[in-house]
């Protein structure tokens, strides 16, 4: 019997000819979009579930309530240990990451992902050990665990075990274990692991014991059946005490971030890497729903519209003894077949598009993910959903046509069928219009963010990064003099951190004159003279650092004051009313919030606020010094006359070799660094709009199907009209007016919901665009344009039909 159903289904598919092709193509486009979105969602979820007992693992994070609720992914060294000692958690382990210059044989490697960890690391987090033993390696002070690709990079084909590696301070390390590269689905990022003992050997115990240095990613294993919120409260009670003893008016609390949530929900400071975006995933999920809705209803609409053509067949089958359930089975079999074909086309399309999606949207979708069990389950679920969703209603309706009516040729006609199809098309058009308007706003918003001034000039500046700080600051005065002799270089400056880069160092400031006022978590940056002029940051009062102040600051003792520059946020926080008033005032820089280690500062200038990274991060209090170099690596900024990018680069290259011992550094235009900050948002917006467009395309396929079907059904009428002199435009109008009216109705119905949704989405941005009224007007026109194209195309095709034959056969 199944074979008969399948055979009949094949015949039906064949008999519908070009309508089947339209139907399958529309469905395939929708499914292809859905599959790509689904693959992205599958690849972005399920992170870090491979650790044993991952449900009980969490990372302890700290939230500074008194500092804009800044959440930091890492906490202080002693905190985790105290929790384990007090029995609040079953177990805990710490990781801290450094960028180190390591020597392997004769070569130097700048390693950005060196992790120091507690010895029990592997008891809690899973790593695939390829050789040696992680636990043992971490117990030994010289022990080093490296990943496979690090091993390949350092040692090539040589056996990595027991090889020697030199720390920057000269301590020899030895590779005692090799692990596989971390899998794709983890929030962790590391190339090698050493024990905490080695960290102590390099940096001393200070950092490990400080309650103020939030540098340690601390993972804890929770006891069974623990109430997370209650536990967070108890942890906060326990851990904030020692901090509040040091700084009484500091308010903070702790949160436990489940390890499998970190990738999608972790947006704290100091994350291992840029994490995924749960909101984007939910946007994608809703897009899937909308696209599927449109595609499925295309099918339903089409199946019921063409029922008239099949009425006789349906009637005959009933008359010779097919029961209703047999008919339902047959129609389901048909949709199974159609959906299967569409699904296959969509899968092939997806595979072909995957490389393009990866490059265009910066995704890392791999073919190997297709073997993921979760993907299979989702895909199968999707398939069944479409088969049932698309097939069931038509099957029910078509099998219910009374035998005699069917024999007489009546399909699913009459008022109800027509209204049903109209309402479906109405919903589809409304969705498409809504998506277009929403997508337009998303696009406009991202454009606005990209164009909003960040407080410094982005254009015509080259950034040379990761240059040895000591050498750079020492060489800069001579180097910049030489450079500025050339006509097209305007200014040269150096800084530990430049705008567009996440700033890493913080201090506390206390006003020497206004005693009670202090500011915590102030970003501190060491900059050269001319830095603000080079960056185009506005000086509100005072002057830039002088070249000679670099030496003076570097050698200042703790009771000599050093020149400092503050930004407007600090100015306000310290209670000054004008920038001028602050010039010459004294303040204290505390290197920890307890002001145990301090420098005295004298304000020489106040600068305007600027956004250190993107517009998404709030403005921060900042203080600038010169000469107090904290970072091993710094950056050089060169501003040049517009258009002279290449000569500037060439000049730098020639001069570099004569002045610097290190290799020519990596360089980038500041403007491209800034645009990279918005890359994710821009790609996200492009992606949403691409899928909106696909949704529109699927709707168009639906219109195309219905339109050409209705043209086919009214072939004789059209032939007669043509005989009586109707032109192409008349026929287009007769065929298309129904759709155009429907667009207008759908448009007027969707305006308010879209407006509401758009406003809700926009308010999350600190700076946002207003309602773009032109988009509300453009969207329906876009759709009408597409419909008009479809209608004209269909009518043109009709024009080729032989009139005489049409009139004869009817």
């Amino acid at each position: 019997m199944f074979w008969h159903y399948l055979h009949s289904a094949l015949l039906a598919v064949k008999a519908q000819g070009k309508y089947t092709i339209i139907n399958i193509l529309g469905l395939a486009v929708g499914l292809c979009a859905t599959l790509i979105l689904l693959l992205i969602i599958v690849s972005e979820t399920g992170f870090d579930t491979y650790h044993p007992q991952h449900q009980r693992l969490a990372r302890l994070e700290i939230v500074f309530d008194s500092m804009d609720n800044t959440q930091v992914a890492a906490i202080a060294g002693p905190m985790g240990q105290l929790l384990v000692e007090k029995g609040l958690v079953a177990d805990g382990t710490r990781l801290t990451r450094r960028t180190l210059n390591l020597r392997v044989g004769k070569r130097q490697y700048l390693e950005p992902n060196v992790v120091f960890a507690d010895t029990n690391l592997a008891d809690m987090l899973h790593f695939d050990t390829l050789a040696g033993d992680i636990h043992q390696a971490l117990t030994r002070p010289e022990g080093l665990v490296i990943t496979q690709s690090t091993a390949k990079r350092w040692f090539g084909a040589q056996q990595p075990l027991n090889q020697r590696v030199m720390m920057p301070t000269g301590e020899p390390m030895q590779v005692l274990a090799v692990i596989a590269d971390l899998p794709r689905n983890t929030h962790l990022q590391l190339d090698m692991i050493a024990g905490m003992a080695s960290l102590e050997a390099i940096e001393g115990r200070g950092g490990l014991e400080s309650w103020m240095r939030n540098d340690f990613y601390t993972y804890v294993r929770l006891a069974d059946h623990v109430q997370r919120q209650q536990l967070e409260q108890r942890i906060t009670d326990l851990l904030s005490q020692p901090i509040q003893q040091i700084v009484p008016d500091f308010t903070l609390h702790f949160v436990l971030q489940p390890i499998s949530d970190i990738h999608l929900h972790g947006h704290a400071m100091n994350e291992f890497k840029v994490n995924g975006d749960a909101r984007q995933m939910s946007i994608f999920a809703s897009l899937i729903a909308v696209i599927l809705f449109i595609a499925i209803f295309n099918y339903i609409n089409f199946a019921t519209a063409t029922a008239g053509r099949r009425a006789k067949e349906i009637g005959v089958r009933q008359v010779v003894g097919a029961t209703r359930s047999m008919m339902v089975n047959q129609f389901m079999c048909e949709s199974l077949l159609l959906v299967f074909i569409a699904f296959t086309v969509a899968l092939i399309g997806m595979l072909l598009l995957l490389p393009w999606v990866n490059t265009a949207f910066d995704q890392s979708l791999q073919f190997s993910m297709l073997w993921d069990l979760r993907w299979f389950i989702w895909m199968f679920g999707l398939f069944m959903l479409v088969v049932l969703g698309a097939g069931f209603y038509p099957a029910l309706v078509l099998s219910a046509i009374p035998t005699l009516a069917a024999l007489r040729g009546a399909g699913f006609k009459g008022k109800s069928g027509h209204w049903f199809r109209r309402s479906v098309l109405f919903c589809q058009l409304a969705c498409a219009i809504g998506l277009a308007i929403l997508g337009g706003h998303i696009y406009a918003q991202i454009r606005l963010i990209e164009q909003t001034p960040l407080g410094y000039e982005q254009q015509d500046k080259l950034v040379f990064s990761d240059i040895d700080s000591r050498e750079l600051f020492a060489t800069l005065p001579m180097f910049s003099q030489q450079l500025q002799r050339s006509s097209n270089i305007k200014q040269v400056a150096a800084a530990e951190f430049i705008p567009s880069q996440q700033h890493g160092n913080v201090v506390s400031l206390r006003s020497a004159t206004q005693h009670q006022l202090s500011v915590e978590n102030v970003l501190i940056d060491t900059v050269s003279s001319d830095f603000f002029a080079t960056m185009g940051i506005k000086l509100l009062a005072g002057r830039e650092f002088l070249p000679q102040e670099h030496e003076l600051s570097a050698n200042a003792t703790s009771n000599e004051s050093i020149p400092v520059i503050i930004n407007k946020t600090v100015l306000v926080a310290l209670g000054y009313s004008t920038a001028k008033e602050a010039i010459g005032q004294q303040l204290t820089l505390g290197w920890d919030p307890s002001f145990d280690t301090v420098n005295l500062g004298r304000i020489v200038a106040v600068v305007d606020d600027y956004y250190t990274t993107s517009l998404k991060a709030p403005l921060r209090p900042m203080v600038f010094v010169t000469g107090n170099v904290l970072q091993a690596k710094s950056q050089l900024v060169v501003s040049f006359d517009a258009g002279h990018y290449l000569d500037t680069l060439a000049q730098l290259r020639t001069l570099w070799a004569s002045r610097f011992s290190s290799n020519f550094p990596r360089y980038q235009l500041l403007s491209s660094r800034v645009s990279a900050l918005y890359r994710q948002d821009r790609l996200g917006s492009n992606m949403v709009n691409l899928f909106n467009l696909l949704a529109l395309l699927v709707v168009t396929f639906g219109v195309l199907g219905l339109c050409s079907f209705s043209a086919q059904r009214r072939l004789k009428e059209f032939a007669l009209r043509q005989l009586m002199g109707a032109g192409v435009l008349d026929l287009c109008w007769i065929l298309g007016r129904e759709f155009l009216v429907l667009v207008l109705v759908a448009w007027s119905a969707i305006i308010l919901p879209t407006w509401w949704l758009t406003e809700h989405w926009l308010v999350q941005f600190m700076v946002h665009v207003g309602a773009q009224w032109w988009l509300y007007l453009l969207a329906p026109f876009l759709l009408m344009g597409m419909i008009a194209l479809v209608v004209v195309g269909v009518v043109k095709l009709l024009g080729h039909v032989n009139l005489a034959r049409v009139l004869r056969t009817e």
Partner: protein
Amino acid sequence: MITLENISKTFANDEVKTQALTDVSLTINEGEFIAIMGSSGSGKSTLLNHIGLLENADAGHYWFEGSDLYQMSRSARQKFRASHLGYIFQNFNLIDDLTVYQNIELPLLYQKVAKSERQQRVNEVLERLELTQRQLHRPLQLSGGQQQRVAIARALVTRPRVILADEPTGNLDSRIGAEVMSLLQELNAEGATIVMVTHSPEHAEYCGRVVEMADGTLINNSAKLATAN
């Protein structure tokens, strides 16, 4: 075998009401060959469709060998219909996409008859109706008379006890029509009960009894071989 008792039927279409059958009572005995005649619109097809259970009566009873069909469940009636009744139409009603063989096989498929038996029975009727040569053709490749023979074959293949034919010769020229009529006569002689609607008095000659209709009622329900009552 079949007794219809006071069957009435009204069609209500958009304000227009048509009383197609009014209090029709009719008894059909096993082995009879009945012609239903009457002017166009008099309710002949409607009556035949009631006998064929394709239409539900508004009022009345339908007895088949003592069982009340209108009291049966939908599915039981469906089953009864598929196994006891065969239909032949004026416009043949074949499925154009299926071959002759597949068209004839269809009722057996729906009755879930095993494959080997299906083959045997289809071949039997193909031979009987001299269609063996044509079994792989599609309906549209055949003449009208051949198409009607396929339709008759399809009606016969389930070995129904009653064959219902609505103007089976209406679309055929007189020579082919006569052929179809003698075929039906043969089937009747072999024991099948046949009820046929026809316009042609000539073809009514083949029948043992003629029933005449006008305005939804039987005006002559006791023709030449009156056995009822």
